[in-house]
């Protein structure tokens, strides 16, 4: 379009199209702001060595797996697993063994990845709330929910990238060594990232509330342990003497995120067993949405 044509097009454009253009510009500015906040979080994670620390530890774990498989420990175990059965069933047993090994490794990576991610993320929210930094951020045409969203998504992206790297590498190593490729192992990526996304809402909430990285870490880690204990409800409820204590236990179980159940379901799914995803996923997601909304509410009311 020539300059003249553009001018004419501009001149004939009605108020509606001007408003639409202004709206589009505003939307584009919002995305730009969100992207800047996400990239800033990643840059800060890199500068604080959290990014490289996570990738370094993941690389060490990958090397450890390579080493373990190199010394034929697994081949020995595979051989042992195949010994007592007849040759026709050896392949099937080996597959079961490898699938079980995949499930076990996925559970290990789920636990490892979750804790490491919480440790790495605990300080990122309080850092942005430091006096002299938050004041300047708030002086920009940025809404407070947008600030939280940028920080949250940036943090999540760092952890997700690390987990994709870790789980995919381990998958390739096990597959290459056993020659049994079991793509369900890759469930470990979304499940771990999902649990971290839920726990990160707690890190953000405590970060906004107390501006303390240590407390954010403690509360998020404690939640994982509490969920582990609460998940034993079938046993515990029988042992509790009063109705109110049983209801309290059940209530807490349903209200809090279900780290233990998610791990259990993931392992079952990887091993090809029936897995009930629905309950642990939706209850944890509701918890995450609620806590993140509470963080935004609190952040909007605070003075800096």
């Amino acid at each position, binding site marked *: 379009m020539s300059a003249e044509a553009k001018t004419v097009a501009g001149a004939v454009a009605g108020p509606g199209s001007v408003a639409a253009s202004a709206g589009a510009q505003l939307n584009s*500015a919002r995305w730009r702001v969100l992207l800047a906040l996400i990239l800033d979080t990643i840059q800060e994670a890199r500068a604080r060595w959290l990014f490289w620390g996570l990738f370094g530890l993941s690389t060490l774990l990958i090397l450890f797996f390579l080493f373990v498989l190199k010394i034929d420990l697994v081949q020995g175990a595979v051989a042992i697993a195949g010994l007592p059965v007849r040759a026709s069933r050896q392949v099937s047993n080996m597959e079961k063994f490898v699938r079980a090994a995949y499930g076990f490794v996925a559970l290990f990576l789920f636990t490892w990845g979750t804790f490491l991610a919480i440790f790495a993320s605990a300080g990122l929210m309080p850092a942005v709330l430091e006096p002299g*930094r938050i004041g300047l951020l708030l*002086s920009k*045409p940025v809404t407070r929910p947008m600030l939280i969203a940028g920080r949250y998504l940036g943090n999540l992206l760092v952890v997700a990238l690390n987990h994709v790297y870790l789980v995919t590498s381990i998958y390739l190593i096990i597959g290459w060594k056993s020659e049994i490729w079991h793509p369900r192992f890759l469930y470990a990526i979304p499940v771990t990232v999902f649990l971290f996304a839920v726990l990160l809402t707690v890190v953000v909430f405590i970060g906004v509330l107390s501006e303390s990285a240590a407390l954010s870490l403690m509360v998020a880690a404690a939640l994982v342990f509490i969920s582990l204990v609460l998940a034993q409800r079938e046993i515990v409820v029988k042992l509790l003497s009063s109705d109110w204590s049983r209801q309290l236990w059940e209530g807490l179980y349903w209200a809090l995120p279900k780290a233990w159940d998610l791990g259990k379901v993931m392992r079952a799914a990887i091993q090809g067993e029936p897995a009930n995803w629905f309950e642990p996923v939706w209850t944890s997601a509701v918890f995450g949405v609620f806590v993140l909304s509470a963080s935004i509410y609190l952040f909007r009311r605070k*003075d800096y």
Partner: protein
Amino acid sequence: MSTTLAIETEGLGKTYRTRWGGKEITAVAGLSLQVPAATKYGLLGANGAGKTTFVKMLLAAVRPSAGRALLFGKDADRPESRREVGYLPENHRFPTYFTGAGMLDFYGALSGMSGGDRRQRIPELLTLVGLESWGEVRIKKYSKGMLQRLGLAQALMHRPRLLVLDEPTDGVDPAGRRHIRDVLNGLTGTGVTVFLNSHLLSEVELFCDHVAILSKGKLALEGKMRSLLAGRGYLLTARQVSEATKREVMGVASGARPLDDGVEFQIGSPEDVNGAIDKLRAGGAMIHSVIPTMSSLEDVFLATTGLPRPAPAAEAKT
């Protein structure tokens, strides 16, 4: 409310409540202030007078307990209103992982600038604040003065119409102060409103054309700098003044001080100055000078806030 005002507040107040006791502490009380666009406005006040709280309420970092604030006619609480504002906070803590250019890029993006605009603007601003060769250096290597200049560049990045500066020369050496003042003086005539919050009276006196003084969270005085400082009278110096002429002039002068080679009269109004000049000439005296006497901003500040004038010894120490 008018949009020719850069800042307008109506009964703006902030009351903090202590955590457990519920005791109320008023930081700012019912402050109504109008800052015309394209002026250089100074906000003064003793420590704890409420200056920083007031600035933070303008920029939505602190929620007002009462009243409202407008920036160019838009509610200060709305993010769009801050699109027009550049801010350099006191005791800023810029993330040290940034390079100078990286920091400008980040804050420019937050202000909604496009990538192309930022790329064009960054070298311009680094040159303006004298940091053109430091753009790719991490800011943890910067001195305090360099950080202040970079902070100023950050505030100017998106070409704001209102610049809010909180103690911009705090901790900066005299050369750095001069540089910052030069940059700010360069904004004169560009239509940019500069709102300067400072406890350095000389700085405000040198730079600002309007001033407001806060005392205990309230607006104690507001006006044009010239009218606040001027109007105290004139010093008329004359030579070869006879005693008879001196007595005649003392009829209109409020005081006289003998000098080695003449007399210095203190006179209140321009009419009396003219009368005194007539009398001196008629008496054969020679007029040497007529100087308007202006009280310093410090005089005005101390009189307004009721703070005691520091003892000479204490002044010498500071």
